[in-house]
């Protein structure tokens, strides 16, 4: 998968800064994600990785710089508008709908693919019913893909952590995104669960051609599955390249070893 990046990236982040008061959490970061790529974003705690994802998905608006998706500017969009473009994501601290069943969680992920017709829905009649069943069928395919058949009807809040992460991925996949943002999808998992998750991420990329940007701390995982790695430290991008280069990069080693900044 590591062809040279094509001329037209799917997502372009250009000189973006995000500030919280005096703190500059993301500082003039530029990066591009090519279609079909798996990009890993790494960096020490508090480096601004999550904040960068939040800016991409419209929760925070950059203080400067711009973000383009499919070559159109989307710097100032709100999260629902970002979703409509075809960007889906998962959260660092699992943000499932706890009171809803796994099935309903994933069905909610189909929201933008559904057409609203209030009256027909109120009667659960004709096209409304048909639409509901079609999407159910699609969701069942995702359930099979992620091997979560057994917990379909379980309230999401009652699942163990590892499964919750998987359901969150399912919900994001339900939107059939062009770009999938994963914030530490393997955090807190045991080795076996991590392996499963790696497999799902790779399969998603290969079977659906989904472009993926993921934040991950486990270097083994990063080296295994990513085509390219971007390193953030104190809000700045300090490296960008193939995994094998990053592993040897002096600035990256310093950042991880906590060498003093000048």
């Amino acid at each position, binding site marked *: 998968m590591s062809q040279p990046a094509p001329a037209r990236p799917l997502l372009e982040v250009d000189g973006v800064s995000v500030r919280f008061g005096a703190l500059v959490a993301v500082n003039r970061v530029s990066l591009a994600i090519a279609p079909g790529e798996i990009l890993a974003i790494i960096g020490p705690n508090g480096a601004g990785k999550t904040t960068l994802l939040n800016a991409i*998905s419209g929760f925070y608006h950059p203080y400067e710089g711009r973000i383009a998706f499919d070559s159109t500017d989307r710097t100032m969009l709100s999260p*629902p508008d970002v979703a409509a473009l075809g960007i889906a994501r998962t959260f660092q601290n699992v*943000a499932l709908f706890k*009171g*809803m069943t796994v099935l309903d969680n994933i069905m909610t992920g189909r929201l933008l693919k559904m057409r609203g017709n209030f009256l027909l829905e109120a009667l*659960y009649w004709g096209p409304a019913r048909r639409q*509901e*069943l079609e999407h159910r069928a699609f969701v069942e395919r995702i359930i099979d893909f992620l091997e979560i058949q057994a917990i379909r009807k379980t309230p999401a809040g009652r699942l163990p952590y590892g499964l919750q992460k998987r359901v969150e991925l399912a919900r994001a996949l339900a939107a059939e995104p062009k770009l999938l943002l994963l914030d530490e999808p393997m955090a807190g998992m045991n080795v076996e669960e991590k392996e499963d998750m790696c497999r799902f991420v790779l399969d998603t990329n290969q079977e659906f051609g989904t472009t993926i940007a993921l934040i991950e701390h486990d270097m083994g995982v990063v080296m295994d599955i990513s085509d390219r790695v971007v390193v953030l430290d104190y809000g700045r991008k300090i490296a960008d390249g193939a995994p094998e280069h990053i592993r040897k990069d002096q600035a990256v080693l310093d950042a991880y070893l906590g060498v003093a900044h000048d």
Partner: protein
Amino acid sequence: MIYREAGQFKTSYASDQAIFPIAQDRAVVLLALAAAFVGPPLLASEYWLQAILIPLLIYSLAAIGLNLLTGYAGQLSLGTGGFMAVGAYAAFKLTTAFPQVSIVLVFLLSGLVAAGVGLVFGIPSLRIKGFYLAVATLASQFFLVWLFNKVAWFSNYASSGTITAPDRAVLGVTVTGPSATASARYLTALALVTVFALVAKNLVRGRVGRSWMAIRDRDIAAEIIGVRPLRTKLLAFGISSFYCGVAGAELVFLYLGSAETQAFDIGLSFLILFMVIIGGRGSILGSVLGAVFIVLVPIFLTNAPHALGLRLPVALQKQIELMVFGGLIVFFLIVEPRGLARLWQITKEKLRLWPFPH
């Protein structure tokens, strides 16, 4: 062994998506519904219809309405009484201005008026959440009741804002006003509740309900899925107020016969909220169970001393009722914070295993 899914393979998603996937459930519910339409008009006394069944149905409708907003969409509202008042006064104005319009249509239009008002008062929900929003909804409660009290136009210039239900017929049968029989009023209320409970169930199990619950459970995650918070919350306020508006109109037209603005004071808002909490947040069935509980408990408390042969002074009786009612609420919250609907569900799960525990 009798009540279970065994043998009923879900051959398609269609049957799995049905409201009652289990055949026995479907049968029981249909039978119960048929009994509700046929039984009470034939068997129940005037007292039962008037004092218990009719208010129970009307409160159920209001509780379903509030449950859509509070239980499903997660927006705590203390303004139910105000929205019910809007429905009642709108129905009064409409039916006195256009006596020839069918009263059922008038009820629906009153619901729409209430929905419009609900939308306006739902706007703050974009900026504020939780208890702040709850307190903000009190503004609608106080403002609306004040408005109907102050502006005599709403009550056609009757003294102290009293509105009285005129005689109106559906298909030749008088269903509102002084000459309507209790049975006719009961059947009207039952028909409306049945239809609107079904509609509510359809909404909550589909796209709309899922976006409500998504906003309730985790608003940021909902947004990145494409749920637009303002639109979604406003829809919940609108629909909920529609239900409350219709219930408010029914309260005057089918139950009280005539009412002043006090009938819609904050006490009513709390009563409906109790039905939702005790019945079960996020459950249509729970709303009805909650209404049953809240209607029956005071009646039970009023009659219990009598049955025991105690003659209590009226004031003392009232005070004891308040204490027991308050105590019961706390007790229920402690025993099952998720309400009667949850108890019902647990019972059903036990029944499914019966007679083989595991």
